[in-house]
């Protein structure tokens, strides 16, 4: 799928979900964000970007090593 098609589908679903949220959802609000229209869209997007960026940063900085880091490496297959 091309970038544009995906963005169009994404836009349509988000728009539809926001309309439904405004029209039909009566949230029982425990925190402010439960009543915030479209909060999950923003949270999902920012959260996903944050997870990718933080993981990649931590990976480069501390976690990732060459494949043969533990003696001889892992050359096996099933």
């Amino acid at each position, binding site marked *: 799928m091309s970038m544009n098609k995906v963005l169009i589908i994404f836009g349509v679903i988000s728009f539809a979900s926001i309309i439904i949220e405004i029209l039909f959802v009566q949230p029982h609000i425990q*925190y402010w964000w439960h009543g915030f229209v*479209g909060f999950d869209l923003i949270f999902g997007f920012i959260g*996903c970007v944050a*997870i990718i960026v933080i*993981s990649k940063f931590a990976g480069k900085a501390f976690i990732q*090593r060459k494949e043969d880091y533990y003696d001889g490496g892992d050359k096996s*297959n099933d």
Partner: protein
Amino acid sequence: MINLHPGIILLVGAFLALILRQQLLRQGIMILAPALALVSLLNIRVGTSFSYNFINDMELIILKVDRLSWLFGLIFCIVALVANIYALHVKRRGENVAGLAYAGCSLGVVFAGDWITMIFFWEVMAVASVLLIWNRKVPEAIKAGFRYILVHFFGGNLLLAGIFLKVSEGQIEITSLTNTNDAAFWLILLGISINAAIPPLHAWLTDAYPEGTVSGSVFLSAFTTKVAVYALIRIFSGTEFLIWAGVIMALYGVVYAVLENDIRRLLAYHIVSQVGYMVAAVGMGTYLALDGAAAHAFSHILYKSLLFMGAGAVIYATGKRKLTDLGGLWHKMPLVVILYMIGAFSISGVPLFNGFISKSMIISAAASNGMLAVEALLYLASIGTFLSIALKLPYFMFFGPDRGIEPKKLPTNMIVAMVMGASLCILYGVMPSLLYQYLPFGSIYQPFTIEHVISTVQLLVATFAAFWIFIPRLGGKHTISIDTDWFYRKPLVYFVNFLIDISYIIRFQSGILGNRLIHFLIPFFTNPLKWLKSTKDEPAWPVYSENKYRFPIGTTILMTIIVCITVYSFIWLT
């Protein structure tokens, strides 16, 4: 029909599989034993208990059924059946036996009513499960298996020490230890935490599970951690420190999964993440949270075994296990793609799949407890789940660049098992009341409110958008990730080698020094008569003469007489 312990049925099945050489008979047992266990479980009423008089008038309760253990027993029987069908084509007898025994022992722990029975099955479970890893019979698997079994023996010993304390106080029955905070509490908690894979004690899982055999890993993904979750619900419900342990687990697995290249290790990191939800729920301790933990364990076993079956099918068919080696398989194995995606949607909590009905219970429980940060962080972890399992892994495994791999044909039994798992995931997702009616603490929960569904849809769509932007940066890399197993794979090795060197040096040097010392001292310990002045002129270089070192013969006679007198006087006097 009489009540039989479902675990014992599986153990008998394992024994029969051990002595039968014909594969056809073993296959019969691999279907029959779990099926019989399931039937006997469905016949057991809540409240049944069998006890057995052990030594010292200890009453061992081998089977004690309440709603909690019944629910875990049910899912363990179901997954034992599914995983055994998945493993039907396996010719290695040891692996067939280990799978049955492992499932049987898990049921043994679940139905144990006392500490002694529990630790017995707990330890046998560790031994049976390591055989599933060793059966792959390549050096990596054997080494990983050794690390796995050592960690489990360590955890088992901590648990055993705690249990000794409990039993010596006269408490044989398993009871809740929440808020006791004594030595036994911490020892048992630590022992169970190792099995529940709470960081930093989790590395055995992500180290060993990807090294198991294709079907062995399906068993592994289902039992050990969920038995630990069961034990946590039973023993530690409401221990607040577990809330944060669970939240950390949920996010920890997510971070590592983003970096991972090995498909089954990626799934294993998401076991850690998903078990984190359950551990956090156990920490909350409300009825809704505990029911959520039990329900999520139930759902998790179904979808995670399905995911491991899907990844195993890819490994079986292609012989490759890394994202960097896979790609473009979707038109060559479309059925596996569909079945895998059902598992992936389930774990991500897509509505109408079974993850949705249980994960949302835990998040709602956090919200209704007023735990703002816990709710937000668990919600964040579910983004990571969708990202890694449902987007990244299938994209690079099935879609993505075509590497021209020609997959082998899969055995029918593998497909049948995956279809069974997938149908159960959808069945429970569409009809949650099938699961909710058996929940142990009787909380009432409605998953399909429009609010829940809309927020889940929004969350997933937004995650997908972010994924689509980041695709070029998310592909697998030829790296491995170091984790807490680093401590016993690197520094511990150096430390042990250092100790070996030290002891070698001490032994070697003390040998040299000791030799020198002896040579120095020898002259001082020669026969003292040498120092006496001789009455005869001796030759300059003395010739050896026996007489010089001999006592006169009279001395011997004198001593004999003294001994005779002493003995006779003793006899006469007494």
